[in-house]
């Protein structure tokens, strides 16, 4: 099967993307490094927020790719490559995790032996929450993800030339294994990176909460980038309203899912009313955090939910782009709300600061640069995929 059978003509993405990406990266790096120099304590929290944001998009995109294979979905095949390219930054997690490794002392109270010994409960937890084991977990998880990424993506790319259907089969098997692995690893990430910022706090639904945000933001990134590329003519011309509608529906579903999980977590803790759980929410109901908490409910659930309710907004590319950007922003807000309040301990009070907002530049820059680089060699549409034709013919 030659690539042109599908009617897709490969066009190179403009260089500007790479340039804009590197500009963002450089500015972000300069500001970020000065942030670390000015106040390394605060900077490590701010960096963590952006790191998890980046992680959400790369590993979330890999999850979406796996989901397509596992569910044998064909409607999303025409823009599966977009998710694959967004996931391409995944190996960089290894590098981006390093600054955090040097700052575990600032981030995690459990990394201080004297603090651990002040409390029986923490002593009991220290079998899990200790620096060496933490580092092993972090790198093991990232390496597992990279392995899955490499194998799945390699199969997908090989298919462009050979059109071999067996590769789809292999990827289905890989994806079916990846999804439970992803469920466990993402839970561990949520527990290790975010929940353990408060060494004593626990919430069993926390992993699912992070997963909801991860899947939602990866979907929003996919929608945003796909529509942009489609409008500029880089994707297959046969992508139409029906595809947009499905993306919109999925975002709608995950918005509702996030709301459901967020509320479940809140309600159980509120109802149980145990001080060892409620303090986490109390922290986020003090001072300015109260405004952010309310803002989060409104912007992360109410607005997107009602916005995406109508058929029109799920098919109109302009509106979809708007809500995708919106969702990406509120996912950042969500992470900010999860992580930053834990900064206020050891005489560190929280106050708004420029350092909080410089690291996203780095990661957005990286995503853009990687996207451009990968797209130079690889088709933006999986032309050899046997599901592509059905995907393009997709009707609601």
């Amino acid at each position: 099967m030659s690539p042109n059978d599908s009617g897709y003509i490969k066009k190179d993405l403009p260089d500007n993307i790479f340039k804009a990406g590197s500009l963002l990266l450089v500015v972000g790096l300069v500001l970020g490094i000065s942030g670390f120099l000015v106040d390394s304590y605060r900077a490590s929290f701010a960096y963590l927020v952006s790191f998890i944001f980046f992680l959400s998009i790369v590993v979330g995109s890999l999850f979406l790719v796996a989901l397509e294979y596992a569910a044998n979905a064909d409607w999303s095949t025409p823009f599966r490559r977009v998710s694959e390219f967004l996931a391409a930054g995944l190996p960089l997690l290894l590098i981006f995790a390093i600054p955090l490794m040097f700052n575990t002392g600032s981030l995690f109270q459990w990394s201080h032996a004297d603090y651990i010994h002040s409390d029986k409960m923490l002593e009991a937890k220290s079998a899990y929450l200790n620096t060496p084991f933490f580092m092993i977990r972090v790198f093991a998880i990232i390496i597992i993800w990279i392995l899955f990424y490499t194998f799945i993506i390699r199969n997908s790319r090989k298919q462009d030339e050979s059109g071999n259907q067996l590769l789809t089969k292999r990827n289905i098997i890989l994806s079916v294994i990846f999804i439970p692995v992803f469920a466990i690893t993402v839970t561990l990430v949520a527990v290790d990176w975010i929940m353990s910022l408060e060494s004593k706090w626990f919430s069993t639904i926390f992993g699912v909460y992070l997963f909801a945000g991860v899947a939602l933001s990866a979907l929003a990134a996919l929608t945003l980038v796909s529509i942009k590329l489609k409008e500029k003519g880089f994707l297959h011309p046969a992508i139409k309203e029906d595809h947009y509608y499905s993306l919109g529906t999925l975002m709608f579903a995950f918005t509702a899912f996030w709301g459901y999980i967020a509320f479940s977590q809140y309600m159980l803790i509120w109802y149980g009313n145990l001080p060892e759980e409620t303090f986490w929410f109390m922290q986020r109901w003090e001072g300015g955090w109260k405004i952010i908490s309310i803002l989060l409910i409104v912007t992360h659930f109410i607005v997107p939910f009602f916005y995406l309710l109508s058929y029109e907004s799920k098919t109109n590319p302009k509106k979809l782009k708007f809500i995708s950007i919106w969702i990406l922003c509120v996912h950042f807000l969500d992470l900010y709300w999860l992580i930053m309040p834990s900064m206020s301990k050891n005489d560190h009070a929280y106050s708004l600061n420029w350092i909080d907002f410089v690291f996203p530049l780095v990661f957005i820059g990286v995503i853009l640069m990687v996207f451009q680089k990968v797209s130079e060699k690889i088709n933006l549409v999986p032309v050899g995929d046997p599901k592509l034709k059905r995907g393009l013919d997709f009707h609601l």
Partner: protein
Amino acid sequence: MADNNLYCVSALFDTPDKIINAARKTTEAGYKKFDVNTPYPVHGMDKAMGMGQSKIGYITLFFGLSGAVFIFLFMWWTFASNYNIVVGGKPFLSAPAFIPITFETTVLFAAISTFVGMIAVFFKLPHNSHPLHDTEYMKAVSGDKFGLVIEADDEQFERNKVTEFLKSLGAFQVADVYLPEKETYKLFTSGFVIFLIILAIVTSAATYITLNKLMYVVPFSWMEVQPKLNAQEESDIFTDGKGMRPPVDGTVARGELPYPFYGQTNPPEVLSNPTVPTKKILELGKRKFLTFCSPCHGNFAQGESRLNGQFPTGPTLVSGKIINYPDGMIYHIITNGQNVMPSYMHQINREERWAIVDYVRVLQRAQNPSQSDIQEVKKESSSNVTK
């Protein structure tokens, strides 16, 4: 058969592609009243038939939101307005606890209204039969064929033209469908009525036996048989045969302190009054005094008993003797009782007893006012007049 009995001209096709094409052509040809029947949903059919967005979503939205508002108000009314119940120590109106039910009801109302709306408004319920039922055409499209009918009501309908048109679309069979002759059904034939009666008896009996007998055979005694204590009943668990247990000696109730001078007629010393006679305390004292003391001592504590001699009249409490009693002595008499006056320790709690003492002091002062008291009252009443 006469043409005015014609319902439609029907056409059968082999493949989904053909039916989509046929639907599109029929729309383009300007026919409005036509329908498509397929054994499974064919994607893209709505567009091919020229149908816009269904309006059913508005019904769903409206009833979903109504469900949410209704149940939230209902819960507010039951829990926080009409009959306040404390649940789990939460406020009466605690929104987080209401949200799950609001959510469920939203879904319930939305789902039911969508379903009912669909069959009632769009399928025009009580239509319980359709001219296409029981036709060869319907048999074919319930199997593996795809059908399209153009109704005779359509403005452009001309039988021959329509037949030709449908054939030109590639239908392998085109046939006329006539309205069925009117049939009448007698619902309440005697056999059916008897059947209903028997059915009613059988189901009632089965329900009764299940709920009242079957559920209580030994394996299902639902924990009824177990050693337990019933209030106010005897029990052989304890040797004295009493089911209700007195509290252990020395038990102190919450909010109470043991009274040290209990049982002494003339205690050498008494407690001092811990309360400050605020308006709130005095109002409490008044309420309790009127409830507990006034039957014997009178509403104004002057000994104007309402007992009509059935019990020794309580003496006045506004005499010099009682005025000169310390607060603690009055408290002692309430707590301990005195001669025929019984103890009120168990009926009136500590705070209320002190409040009564304060109120008794008010009554005493009201009946023996000092010069300054009188002036104060005069000033107040004259200021009221000038107002």
